[in-house]
């Protein structure tokens, strides 16, 4: 049963990765990568129970933290063009191809 759940999570990760590679806009890619990261956390948690080594849950927790911080950092990079602007003075958005 745990194997079936981990296979379902793997299929979802493949689909999210395909959307991240295909995605027409940059925001589609970021959304797909965010989903991929959440699925990675779940996959690590399921694998921890599958192998009986529940210490792996620490890694899942750290991965959840890194995923959130990474997505917010990439969004800031896409939105303002750098990591250090305050947000008020650089209101000009980055040009996005909407193809």
């Amino acid at each position, binding site marked *: *049963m745990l194997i079936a759940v981990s296979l379902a999570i793997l299929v979802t990760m493949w689909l999210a990765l395909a959307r991240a590679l295909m995605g027409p806009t940059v925001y589609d890619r970021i959304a797909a990568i*965010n989903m991929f990261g959440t*699925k990675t956390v779940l996959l690590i948690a399921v694998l921890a129970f599958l192998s009986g080594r529940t210490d792996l*849950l620490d890694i899942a927790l750290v991965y959840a933290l890194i995923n959130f911080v990474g997505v917010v950092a990439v969004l800031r990079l896409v939105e303002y063009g750098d990591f250090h602007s305050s947000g008020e003075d650089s209101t000009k958005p980055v040009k996005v191809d909407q193809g």
Partner: protein
Amino acid sequence: MIIDILSWICLLSGGLLGVVGGIGIHRFSDFYSRQHAVGITDTLCAMLILLGLGLQAGMSLAAFKLALIFIFLFLTSPTASHALANAAMHGGLKPKLDSVTSEDKS
């Protein structure tokens, strides 16, 4: 026994929702409607799988760690979705509206 069955139901429905969301991000046509499919897998699928694993674990340290992951995902994944949609709107990505709706508005 009953707890086992409940946990399998939670785990399997979580996996099913994950695959449904994965199909959804390929079949929806627009970024903002794709966010709906991403939202399904980020919240309900993750919650159900973590709940099922927690029922398997019983009262132990593993259940506490699962609860920590649960709380963290519960707080951060809606925040990330909101930040993403906000950044897309700020970046000038327009939602694809129905033609009838746009005629009604104009």
